[in-house]
C-alpha cells in the first residue's frame, strides 16, 4: 500500500465522521415529526429511506441519531482519557500508598466486565444522556490508567530520568517533558481502538432500553423501537444497524492505520491490544 492510498482512506473515514457530526443539519425532515398517514412506508422520493412505525422519516432519524450515538461515544472517550491518563501518570510516578489505592480500584473495575458494569450503572441511574455518559466513563477510564501507569513504571527506571532528577528537575517538569511524549502514541492507539467498542456499547445500552430514551433518535434505540414492525418494514432494522456497523468498522480500520503509523514499540502494542 502506498502512502497516498492510506491517506485517501483516512480522509474518507474522517469525512464520514465529519458528515455524521453535522448530520442533523443534513436531515431533510424533522426526525421527531410524527405523521401516521405515512407510517411504515418503503423508500420513496419524499422519504428516501422510508418511514418508521410513527411515520417519521428514517433518513432524518439516522442522520440525527449519529450525533447522539457517535457524539456521545467520542465525548465519553475523551472524558475517560482526561481522567484516566493523569491518574495513571501520577499513580505510577509517585507510587506508594496512593498507587496502591488506585490500583485496587482499577483491579476491581477490571475484574468486572464492561458491559455488566455499564448496564448495572445506567440501569440504576436511569435512562438519559448524562447518565449514559457516566456509565461509559466508569468502565473506560480504567484502561487508560492502567496503560499509562505501566508505561510510566517502564520509563521510571531509565538513567536519563535519574539524571534529570539529579539536575533538579521538578516532578511536573519531568512528567511533562519526559513522560508525556512516551504515553501519547500508545494512548492514542488505545483510544482509536476503543471508539468502535464505545459506539457498540452505547447502541447496546440503548437497545436494551437503558440508554438514550425515545423519541430521541439513537441508533440502538431506533432498532429497539422498530422491533415489532421488522416483518412489515425491514428498513427499520437494516438501516440503523448498518449505520452502526459502517461507523464501527471505519473507526476500527482508522485505529489500525493509526497504530501502524505511530512508532509504537512491540511491548506497547501488545499491551494496548490486550487491554483493548
Amino acid at each position, binding site marked *: 500500500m502506498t502512502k497516498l492510498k492510506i491517506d485517501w482512506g483516512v480522509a474518507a473515514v474522517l469525512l464520514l465522521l465529519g458528515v455524521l457530526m453535522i448530520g442533523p443539519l443534513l436531515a431533510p425532515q424533522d426526525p421527531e415529526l410524527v405523521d401516521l398517514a405515512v407510517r411504515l412506508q418503503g423508500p420513496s422520493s419524499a422519504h428516501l429511506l422510508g418511514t418508521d412505525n410513527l411515520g417519521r422519516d428514517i433518513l432524518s432519524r439516522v442522520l440525527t441519531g449519529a450525533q447522539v450515538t457517535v457524539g456521545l461515544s467520542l465525548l465519553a472517550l475523551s472524558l475517560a482519557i482526561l481522567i484516566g491518563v493523569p491518574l495513571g501518570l501520577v499513580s505510577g510516578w509517585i507510587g506508594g500508598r496512593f498507587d496502591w489505592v488506585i490500583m485496587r480500584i482499577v483491579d476491581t473495575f477490571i475484574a468486572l466486565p464492561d458491559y455488566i458494569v455499564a448496564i448495572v450503572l445506567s440501569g440504576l441511574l436511569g435512562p438519559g444522556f448524562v447518565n449514559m455518559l457516566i456509565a461509559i466513563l466508569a468502565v473506560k477510564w480504567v484502561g487508560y490508567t492502567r496503560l499509562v501507569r505501566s508505561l510510566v513504571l517502564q520509563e521510571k527506571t531509565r538513567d536519563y530520568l535519574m539524571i534529570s532528577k539529579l539536575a533538579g528537575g521538578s516532578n511536573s517538569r519531568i512528567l511533562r517533558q519526559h513522560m508525556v511524549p512516551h504515553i501519547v502514541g500508545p494512548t492514542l492507539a488505545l483510544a482509536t481502538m476503543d471508539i468502535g467498542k464505545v459506539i457498540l456499547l452505547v447502541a447496546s445500552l440503548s437497545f*436494551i432500553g*437503558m440508554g438514550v430514551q425515545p423519541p430521541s433518535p439513537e441508533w440502538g434505540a431506533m432498532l429497539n423501537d422498530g422491533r415489532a414492525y421488522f*416483518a412489515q418494514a425491514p428498513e427499520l*432494522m437494516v438501516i440503523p444497524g448498518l449505520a452502526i456497523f459502517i461507523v464501527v468498522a471505519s473507526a*476500527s480500520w482508522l485505529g489500525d492505520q493509526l497504530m501502524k503509523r505511530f512508532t509504537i514499540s512491540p511491548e506497547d502494542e501488545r499491551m494496548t491490544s490486550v487491554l483493548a
Partner: protein
Amino acid sequence: MRPATWLVPLGKWVAQGIGFFFVLTIISFLIVQLAPGDAVLSMLRIDTVAVTQDEIEALRNELGLNDPAWQQYVRFLGGVLQGDFGASLMTGKSVMGELSKAFPYTLMLAGATMAVVIVITFVLGGLAARFRGSLVDKGVAAFCTAGAAVPTFWLGLLLIDLFAVRLHILPSSGMATAAGLVLPTVALAIAIAPPYIKILRNSLIEASGREFVRAARARGVTESVIFGKHTLRDSLIPLVTILGVSLGSLLGGTVIVEVTFGIPGVGKLAVEALARRDYGVIQAFIIVVGMAIFVINLLVDLSYRALDPSISLKGAERA
C-alpha cells in the same frame, strides 16, 4: 509438580477471593443505600394508599432502616453468606431461587458460545496461518473486522428475521428446545471470536519461525507432529491469556443476547430487575456474577500455568 509451589499461590488466591467478595458485598450494599427512590415508600404503595408519617417510621424501624449503616451492612452480609437475598419485588419469590432458575440458561448459552468460538478460532486461525497472505487469509481478516464491528443485537435480529421469520427453520426466541440455542450462540460467537482468531493466526505464524520448531523440522520430524507438539502448544499461551480478558465480554454479551432472543437467563433477569428497581435481584446478580468471574479467571490462570511451566516456576521463586 511439587505441592509447595501450588500451596503458596493457593493461599494468595483464597485471600484475593475473600477480599473481592467483600468488595462486591460492599458495592451492592452501597447501591441500595445510594440509589434514588425510597424502598419503604414503594412498599407502602404511597401513591395509592394514604399512610401517616408514624406508619412510615414504624416500618422503617421494623426493617431496621434506622440502624447505623454498619449494622445494616452486617445484617446484609449475614444474609448473603447464607445465600439469602430476600424476596424479589417482581415475583415475590426468593431472589436466590429466581437466580438459580436463570443460571443454567446463561451457563448453557455461554458454554455453547465458547465451544463454537473455539472451533471457529482453530479452523479460521489455522487456515489463515497455513495459507498466510493468500485469499483465505484475507477472507479471514475481513471476517474478523466485520465480526468485531457488527452489533450483536443487530446480528441477532437479522438472524431471527432470516431463519425464524422468513425460512421458519429455527425458533425466534426462548430456549424451549435445543434449536433455540442455535441463533443466539452463533450471534454471540461471531462477535467474540475475532480477537481469538487474530491472535491464534499471529502466534502460529510466530511459533513456526521459532528455533525449536526449525530444529525439529531439521531433525526430520513430520509437520503434523511439529504442529501438534510444538507450534500449537506454544500458540496456546497467548490464546489463554486473552481468554481471561475476554470471558468478561462473553458474560456481558450474554446479557445483550438474552434480551434480544428472550432467553430467561441471568442477564435478562438483571435487566428486568434494573428496570423495576428490584434491588435484591440486582445485589445478588452483582455478587454471584462477580464471584463467577473470579473463579473463571482463577481457572484461566491455572491452565495458563499448566501450559507454561516457566510461570509456575517464577511464582515459586517470588514466594
